[in-house]
């Protein structure tokens, strides 16, 4: 298990755990990012942050700060 932020562009994995505090991660989960969801890391933004991922057939962008707390398998 490792943070989503360590994935390389094009790599796929499955979300295992989300360590963002429960009261903050609601919207993220409502967007479909849940334990068990397959994700693909698409790219990092030109300035290194944020990161773009693909899940459930759409593209979503998150900051590295959050991506470091999302663990994938």
């Amino acid at each position: 298990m490792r943070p989503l932020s360590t994935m390389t562009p094009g790599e796929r994995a499955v979300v295992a755990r989300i360590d963002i505090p429960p009261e903050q991660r609601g919207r993220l989960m409502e967007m479909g990012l849940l334990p068990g969801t397959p994700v693909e890391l698409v790219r990092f933004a030109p300035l290194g942050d944020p990161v773009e991922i693909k899940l459930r057939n759409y593209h979503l962008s998150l900051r590295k700060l959050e991506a470091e707390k999302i663990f994938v398998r």
Partner: protein
Amino acid sequence: MKTFTVVLTGNPNCGKTTLFNALTGLRARVGNYAGVTVERKEGALTGADALHPVTILDLPGTYSLSPQSPDEQIARDILFQRVADVPAPDLVVIVADASNLQRNLYFATQVIELGHPTLLVLNMIDVARDQGHEIDTEALSKALGVPVIPMVASEGEGLDVLRQTLRGQAKTPGTRHVIPREFNELPEGFGREAQAIETALEGHFPHRSRLAAAEALLLLSDERALSPDGGTGGPRYPETLIQQVQSARQRLEAAGVDWRSAAIEARYARLFAIEQHVTRETAPPGELLSDRIDRVVTHRVWGLLVFVAVMALMFQSIFWLAKYPMDGIEAAVDALAQWVGSSMPPGDLNDLITRGAIAGVGSVVIFLPQICLLFLFIGLLEDTGYMSRAAFLMDRLMSRVGLHGKSFIPMLSSFACAIPGIMATRTIETRQDRLATILVAPLMSCSARLPVYTVLIAACIPQRNGWPGLTLLMMYLLGIAGALGMAWIFKKTLLRGEPPMLILELPPYKRPMLGAVLRQMWDRSKLFLRRAGTVILGINILLWFLATYPRSSEVEEQFSQRRAQWKQSVSNPPTPAETETGLQLDHEEAGEKLRQSFAGRLGRAIEPTLKPLGFDWKIGIGIVTSFAAREVFVSTLSVVYNVGGDGENTASLAEVMKSERRADGRAMYTPLTGITLMVFYVFAMQCVSTVAVVRRETNSWKWPIFQTVYMTSLAWILAFLTYQIGTRLGF
């Protein structure tokens, strides 16, 4: 005759607005919901039966019924029938993007559970098909329990079916489908608790019992659902119910159930199964055009180049394209004022109408071309999908000062004019971030400062070695630094909050719908004109009054004597030199009158506060009158220095300013005075239109007043430091 109300709802970027425009034929009414700055769009269904009119209300794009922004809150409250001036929907039409089925159905099934008569429009089936997903709409309809209409709204495909359905429903409204269908397989304990709360809700609010199941689910799983929400009249839940929900949450927590995520996970599990059941994969998905574009547009090098090019193009066009209509408007306003002035008997009323009302309205209308163009570009950027890429690219920079990528465009827009910039902050979800952006946006040097900078640079800065251009650049950079610095300070102090989490969808690119973009541009501009215009008109009349009264009969007598002398001595026809003297007399009279007026006295009264900045009372008059709009400073100085009031002959004004002396004989407008004055104008609010718009956007006087005070104080302090340090250094 009762109007049949259709509510259109769905995720952002699902093609809802395109569908709305197709149904209402671009004749929608756009306004705001009472008490909040959320755009309210409604229109009549074109081609509806005259006896059975259909009104369509387009709700803001929403990801879920647990709102994160004012937009989403309004959408939820309307669906829950909590908004007083919006009738209960007779039919809810959910628009879902077929190529992004699971996430779109997350919201769709939440809405279906509310039990309104509901219809699902499955939009963009062409995109889904291109990606190799064939969706069986009948099977989907069976799974969801509501009719499903496949559609390609951008091509008009499926529109007729929807139209006919709406017309049919309006004639014979279907019976409410009260199937309490739920798209969850909730963990047992959770389901039981939800059931108990549902029963309690039915007891407390019998008239809304239909919504009770859905409401119970939200109450149990959405942290913020219990607090009465600001402004929109959400229900105040009885204390016993709040207690009940809280103890239910505690019991669940003790049993190891995460009450925040249980319902979300259960719903997505169901949706995954539904998608598997209704979708047939026809081809392995290849790389989409949108992904190929993104490989360039968000590329490490090309992406930034494209971004800079887009922004440069946008600003160049705003400055250059707007110049022509602006000149035209200026000429038209002048001509109108002249015509009215000459066709009315001279006197105070004449003066009030021409110089107060017409010039006042003119000072607002003059910015309309820039505002329209900016809204046009913003509309195009939003409609194509580039806007979210811009936020993606710039987020890193903005996060340094505690802001969001989404704050970038509003701040950039403020270079043209802070008003559209402030209006563009509506896309920012978090209140603190939005307020911080609004508070600092006017520090970006807007186009109204340009005439002020121009005349001061011409009068004070050596016209060689590129000093003028460099000075101008420095002022722009100073504004940027000020805005970023203040944003950082506000986010650290006044508007401290959770560091905003960025959850930004990057939707596929699409071709913009030009008609709709133009229409939206015009609607937003009109909103600005109507609301800001009235306040500005009032302030301008007030300033006119200050600059005109009290009249001094002494001055009038003195000048009528001098004019009589001039008339006697003048030859027939007058020589050019004599005409010049006559004009000079007019200018001197205007100047003398201004100096005697309230504004003139105010200028003198504030002189002590301006002395430490190296300004005299004449500049004071300029600062007082330009409170309404910065560029008025130039025309006021023209009057003060007897150059003539049209403000167009910057060159002659600058010449006069250069020869202006202080009491001790030193030049008044040294480079140091010029820079100090420019620094003052970089930071001072000096714009009533902005104050009016901030008042409207924040819905209180508190923020615009705070903003004016902090900006003016900052302007004074920095001008003070500039002048004092400059003087010590011997400039």
